[in-house]
């Protein structure tokens, strides 16, 4: 019996202790008409060699194409030590650190993680993570509506330069509470400052902006932040954490700095893995900490006066506050936080900065090479490690042709940004070489010329 240790003698002895004649008897409180007599329509069990053969074949089907696609998930080098350590059973098979004395390893890592995220974002405090970047954004909007004492508005102002799927997830999560997202248009790849000025005087709980924006263009974060604060809006900064080693952090935007930062933690040592598990991060000014969702770890002293770590500010949470909690969230993404903390420790500030700068340089090289092809031009400048290319024809057939040549060519903007025209968001991380870029140029040239793979 897989994973069940009982011998027939064990079972007989245990039933005798209970005073039951059979295991079936232990289910006699389930009414007969609810009991399932037939076997589930699921096949027999597989042995480990059998399931290994199956999964090797399935993983092999996935092909391993050359990736020039970002759009919220990025291929970066992950040091071997990261997952070798994170999958140690003591991390992997532990749970939420309710018993602090028996969970100091997990708790100290969360404290170290909180310290690193606060440092990267330039804000005071961090939580222990949320599910992913999209839900972190939604929770940040909810938090801002709760926290803004100068406005009773249930509207959050955001921008079409913020990742489309984050806005979609936020709409799912906010609509039940009657909270509305209002979107500013994009101009030259970033939030339109003219449209922003036109909003002056309207009541919003917060302004949410993304740095770098979804289209790869850096936002005018100082002007946006100061505009928002002048109108008593809180400022939410959605940031790629890798880029915070290079770009000015939300805590230093404008005159007063952003109030809340959040984003997708995947670039910090988390594999692409078809979309998850990743983790979302959320940091804020200390004054807002009691409005934060999710677990928070604090450092304190034990009975002997030695430092130790424990979950704190739990009065915000569902298991205490029930229907009046700041969120229904129960867990964090603990194992991903463990990996990210190890990743940031190994890379350090200088390593992260070099990776971000290399991504920028490689994307610059990619753009330069691709725009030499006829009918391909750069849409917006400046850009960080993603850029929009404009085409003289629809992008989808080109992406299909590239895919047949083993290349993920980028993100087709047609559905989300019809106002841009045929556009492709491309990305070359530090993992792409000059040869990779040459492969892409060759394949795209052939696709544009209409040649089959």
């Amino acid at each position: 019996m897989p994973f069940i240790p009982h011998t027939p003698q064990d079972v007989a002895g245990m039933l005798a202790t209970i005073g039951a004649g059979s295991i079936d008897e232990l289910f006699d409180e389930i009414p007969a008409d609810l009991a399932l007599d037939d076997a589930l329509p699921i096949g027999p069990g597989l042995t480990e060699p059998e399931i290994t053969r199956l999964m090797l074949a399935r993983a092999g089907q996935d092909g391993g194409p050359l990736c020039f696609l970002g759009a919220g998930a990025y291929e970066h080098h992950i040091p071997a030590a990261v997952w070798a350590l994170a999958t140690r059973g003591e991390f992997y098979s532990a749970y939420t650190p309710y018993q602090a004395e028996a969970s100091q390893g997990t708790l100290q890592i969360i404290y170290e993680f909180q310290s690193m995220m606060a440092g990267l974002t330039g804000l005071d405090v961090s939580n222990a993570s949320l599910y992913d970047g999209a839900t972190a954004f939604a929770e940040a909007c909810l938090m801002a509506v709760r926290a803004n004492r100068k406005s009773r508005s249930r509207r959050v102002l955001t921008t079409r330069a913020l990742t489309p799927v984050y806005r979609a997830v936020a709409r799912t999560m906010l609509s039940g509470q009657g909270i509305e997202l209002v979107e500013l248009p994009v101009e030259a790849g970033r939030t339109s400052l003219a449209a922003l000025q036109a909003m002056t005087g309207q009541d919003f709980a917060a302004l949410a902006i993304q740095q770098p924006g979804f289209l790869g263009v850096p936002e005018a974060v100082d002007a946006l932040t100061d505009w928002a604060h002048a109108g008593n809006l809180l400022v939410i900064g959605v940031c790629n954490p890798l880029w915070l080693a290079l770009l000015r952090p939300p805590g230093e935007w404008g005159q007063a700095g952003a109030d809340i930062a959040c984003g997708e933690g995947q670039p910090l040592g988390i594999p692409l893995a078809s979309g998850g598990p990743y983790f979302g991060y959320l940091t804020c000014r200390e004054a807002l900490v009691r409005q934060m969702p999710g677990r928070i770890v604090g450092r304190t002293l034990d009975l002997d006066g030695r430092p130790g770590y424990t979950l704190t500010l739990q009065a915000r949470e569902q298991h205490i506050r029930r229907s009046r909690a700041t969120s229904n969230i129960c867990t964090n993404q603990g194992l991903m936080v463990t990996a990210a903390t190890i990743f940031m420790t190994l890379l350090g500030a200088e390593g992260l900065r070099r990776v971000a700068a290399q991504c920028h340089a490689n994307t610059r090289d990619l753009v330069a090479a691709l725009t030499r092809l006829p009918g391909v031009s750069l849409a917006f400048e400046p850009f960080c490690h993603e850029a929009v290319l404009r085409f003289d024809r629809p992008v989808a057939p080109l992406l299909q042709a590239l895919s047949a040549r083993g290349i993920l060519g980028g993100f087709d903007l047609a559905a989300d940004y019809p106002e841009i025209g045929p556009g492709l968001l491309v990305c070359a991380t530090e993992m792409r070489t000059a040869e990779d870029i040459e492969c892409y140029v060759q394949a795209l040239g052939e696709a544009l010329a209409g040649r089959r793979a």
Partner: protein
Amino acid sequence: MNREPVVFEHSRPGRRAPSHAPAHCADTASLPQELLRRSPPLLPEVSELDAVRHFTRLSQLNFSIDTHFYPLGSCTMKYNPRAANSLAMLPGFLARHPLGAVGHGQGFLECLFELQEMLKAVTGMQGVSLTPMAGAQGEFAGVAMIRAYHAARGDHARRVIIVPDAAHGTNPATATMCGYDVREVPTGPCGDIDLDALRQAVGPDTAGIMLTNPSTLGVFERRIAEVAGIVHAAGGLLYYDGANMNAILGRARPATMGFDVVHLNLHKTFSTPHGGGGPGAGIVAVNQRLDPFLPVPIVGERDGRYVWLTERERPQSIGRLSAFMGNAGVLLRAYVYMRMLGAPGMRRVADYAVLNANYLMTKLRQAGFDVAYPERRASHEFIVSLKAIARDTGVTAMDFAKALLDRGYHAPTTYFPLLVPECLLIEPTETESCEVLDGFAAALVAIRDQARSDPAAVKAAPLTTPVRRLDDVRAARDLDLTWQRRKSPAGAS
């Protein structure tokens, strides 16, 4: 055990693990200079060996399933098979970009499609969405679907979600997040829901009820069919919180009990790792009437190929709950586990989980402990109340929990459910042997003996853990949440 310094204390200016980043910093002159960071963030400066030692030592400060019996009630801390992890981490799965063409993901999508089908079989439901990333998000999806269903019928008067007083805190918190008011109904003396109170509670404002069965009291809700009849007759829907599915897997199905929507915690019933607090997965399954509202994406099959079904194919969907496909890697781990068990293995999960719980409950009752519902069968978990011992000796459930740590056992869930005073909620799971259960029972007996002879000794526990009891009041009052803002605590060494 010695304490491990904070990683920043290992830091030395200029020390690095240089093989993980480019050898030189590329030119950033083409970025707007006014947007560049002025000073580097505070991150450690350590060698690779420094990092490996630090995090290895930290791991050794944890209790975990791999090292300790972990009978945390309502959390299903069973063995997490290593094959599920290594197979989900095959390079072909790990390297796949979430927005990659489906042509580059057929093997991955086939696993998810088959997982959906197996979860339909387990729950008896018609439709499944795998996207929710934890139980609480599955709850959100379920209640949002109930809301969408009523709204689609133009029925906007239903403003109340009913929850039993024994419910997990996530249930009322979820109802609030979905914009509902919460109405609690009490539990009767035998642990079943109070049906008269339920009849009083339902009405034209009832959107639905959230139930866990077996309940958090560790007993099967025997009159569930009547509950379903009362709620449906009032026009409400039934939500099944699958936290305790391990107790009935292959033995009973939520659809047959009358539930309209279910969430299952794959990190409980299907043994994906808890990871120190996530990632989990909280898939949702629904009957026909809620099917159009399932969150997207869903994996469909068309002409022998697997495809994503999105808002385009499912316009009534409540929408998206994650940027991509939920916790995809967790889904793969659950898939491997379910395929390894097969149909007979699933039923065995419930059989042996319930056998172990009833065995341990009997042993403890025979040893003189008070169990909450002695006349009832335990499900996969049960409650011991230490109220009498606490009254006689002053030694509380919390003290027992800490004393267990010194004896090498993770503590059960304490002080939940809230309606049983001084309680331990004990869930042994099916993967533990009877010797482990005997050892645990003996430890509880020894602690009780010590509580009577030397209560101060029990209250001083734990003594063998890396730290002793922590000052939670100080933690919340003098907030120290990050290293750079650390105040040097008085007396710290």
